[in-house]
């Protein structure tokens, strides 16, 4: 069995906001192997995005704080990596697609500029002109050569406004990244990439912007792609298109993907392994089909019943009574216990039930649940 690209072990993240401390993530463990697509679902505020941002250390620290746990990416614990080395990991190691395609592209730069920056970073790192993340050494960072002076002067590039005509875009002035940029625009199935190169984000539709974002993330050839609700901000038809594209690309490129979504329908057909989060904890994880067909945590069961089309053909949709607990005032024991139909006094005892495997199977892919009574969950309607 191949080594995992990413191993998250016992990750606990707190936010210190005002007087209180929000326990955003508690004891989350996860493994992603090369080429594997792992999905994370859960309600708003359950810690999905915190997890996605914590892995490449993109959380603002403070207020966020990684209290404990390890994030081992290709053999290096990212929690211990000093902040100034993190750009070496991001991009070429871990790339990310964000939720808001509207604001995730710099409004002042053309599509070409956005993508060229990503390609440039990859080229510089590959050619050794910028220090690169190297997992196969004792010290994973290579400082052998100092970074080169930026070509043409960074400040000059920053101040001179971008081009305006298509001729300008197609001219040789675009520099040597044009072919790479075009290749990735074609990869994300953008029609007429030559014209799109010279457009600004405000001239693109939401779906196009998200495609450009995906192209940006992929053009750095990351070993792990984190997709943080990549389709939530799009309307339904575009959502389907982008999802189809993502699925095809995942097959084509064979990169490991952490796919975060609150939409079970989106995630159902995309992922190999499905994790369900509730109130900052991973409550169930297993092969996607198994989790969908026979959920072993009452929250997963309830979540599936609350999905349109799945519970019943007519009548009111099933809901989960109660609300997600306040993450700054947690009660002892299982976090789902106050809303759970199976709850018993033992559920309110600390510690929180651990993830235990159900049945037998190869360790990482086995179906695991954090419920004390998985058999009874199976009996629920």
């Amino acid at each position, binding site marked *: 069995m191949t080594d995992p690209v990413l191993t998250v072990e016992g990750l606990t993240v707190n936010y210190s906001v005002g007087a209180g401390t929000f326990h955003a993530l508690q004891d989350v463990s996860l493994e992603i192997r090369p080429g594997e697509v792992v999905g994370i679902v859960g309600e708003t505020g359950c810690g999905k995005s915190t997890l996605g941002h914590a892995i490449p250390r*993109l959380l*603002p620290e*403070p207020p966020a704080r990684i209290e404990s746990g390890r994030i081992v990416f290709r053999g290096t614990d990212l929690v211990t990596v000093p902040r100034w080395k993190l*750009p070496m*990991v*991001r*991009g070429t*190691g871990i*790339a*990310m697609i*964000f*939720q*808001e395609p509207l*604001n*995730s*592209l*710099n*409004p*002042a*730069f053309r599509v070409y500029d956005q993508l060229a*920056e990503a390609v440039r*970073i990859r080229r510089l790192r590959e050619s050794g002109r910028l220090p690169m993340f190297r997992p196969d050494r004792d010290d994973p960072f290579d400082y052998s050569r100092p970074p080169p002076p930026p070509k043409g002067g*960074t*400040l000059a*590039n*920053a*101040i*001179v*406004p*971008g*081009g*305006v*005509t*298509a*001729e*300008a875009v197609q*001219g040789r*002035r675009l520099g040597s990244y044009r072919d790479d940029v075009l290749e990735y625009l074609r990869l*994300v*199935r*953008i*029609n*007429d990439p*030559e*014209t799109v190169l010279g*457009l*600004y984000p*405000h*001239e*693109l*539709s939401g*779906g*196009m912007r998200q*495609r450009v*974002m995906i192209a*940006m*993330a992929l053009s750095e050839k990351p070993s792990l792609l984190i997709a943080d609700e990549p389709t939530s901000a799009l309307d339904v038809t*575009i959502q389907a*298109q982008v999802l189809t*594209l993502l699925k095809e690309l995942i097959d084509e490129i064979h990169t490991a993907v952490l796919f975060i979504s609150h939409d079970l329908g989106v995630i159902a057909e995309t992922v190999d392994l499905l994790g369900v989060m509730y109130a900052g904890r991973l409550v169930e994880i297993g092969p996607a089909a198994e989790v969908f067909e026979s959920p072993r945590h009452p929250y997963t069961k309830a979540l599936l019943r609350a999905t349109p089309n799945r519970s019943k053909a007519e009548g009111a949709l099933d809901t989960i009574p109660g609300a997600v607990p306040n993450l700054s005032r947690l009660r002892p024991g299982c976090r789902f216990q106050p809303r759970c139909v199976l709850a018993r006094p033992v559920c309110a005892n600390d510690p929180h039930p651990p993830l235990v495997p159900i049945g037998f199977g190869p360790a990482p892919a086995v179906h695991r649940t954090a419920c004390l009574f998985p058999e009874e969950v199976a009996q629920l309607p």
Partner: protein
Amino acid sequence: MGVRDTLRLFWAVLRANPLTLAGFLMVAVLCGLAGIMAIDPWLLVRYGPIQTSSASYAPPSWAHPLGTDNIGLDIYSEVMRALPLDLGIALAIVGASVLIGGLLGLVAGYWDRPGTAGGASSIVILRTTDVFLAFPSLLLALAITISLGRGPWQAVLALMLTWWPYYVRLVRGEVLAVKHLPYIQAARAAGVSEGRIVLRHVVRNILEPIVVYLTMDIGTVLVVFSTIAFVADAIPYPSATPEWGSMLSYYQQILPIASYPWLVFGPGAAIFLTVLAFSLLGDGLRDVLDPRTRRALVRSRSRPLPEVPAEASPARPDDPEAKLSGEVPQPA
């Protein structure tokens, strides 16, 4: 992006907006005149800075386009001789302020997380700024000018010392607004280093308000400098180095001013036109810097973008590949 493209863009914007064109032409003319005056003033004027003519209180005429004053100084010559000094002083003060204040503002705005080294430096910068802002800048500049010993360069230095805090505040505010936007986070996620994010992504997106403020500020500096020149008596008039502000304050004491309006008209109009020119230019620059308005300006007035080549055009509806990504760029 080549020089030709830049010029073409520039021309398109100028053509689309007549006021910007006017502002640009005025600034160009002012700078050209200032250049000529600095190299060889005798090409444009017939009198030296303290050279009197035979006529005093002469109204505007061909010999004296802006008239003469009580001792027979040709006001046109005086105004023109003051041009390079005034323009240079205004640009130098604003330039130094935007460099110092802008850099400090960037640092204070971008690295402001409490409990880190950046947060500490941010506090130091902002509190220092507050100390300067606590004094009225005009009084502070006056005090510095006088304590340094009265003179034009003392006044310039004093204004530079008092002018930068406004830019710290302005730049910091803009940086705070921009730095939490998702595209900054996206750049960080793409592995862009912090320095490059600041210089490339942040600076480019805060340029518009700063350029507008800066060009308007040139006029303010001109007026304030003239005030200091007058109150601190930093640049006596009449002297070998005439200056618009000191000219104005000198002539407004000559009574009755209603009988000789041309005395104050010359330097007043010079200040007015300079301030106006930079304000109009600043307005136009904002349009150039914002890709949205720039594209709209260029599209509406110049020829449209070339048609999409036939083989790459939005495909037939039965093309499965096209259905997959059926979106086409939105028309502007």
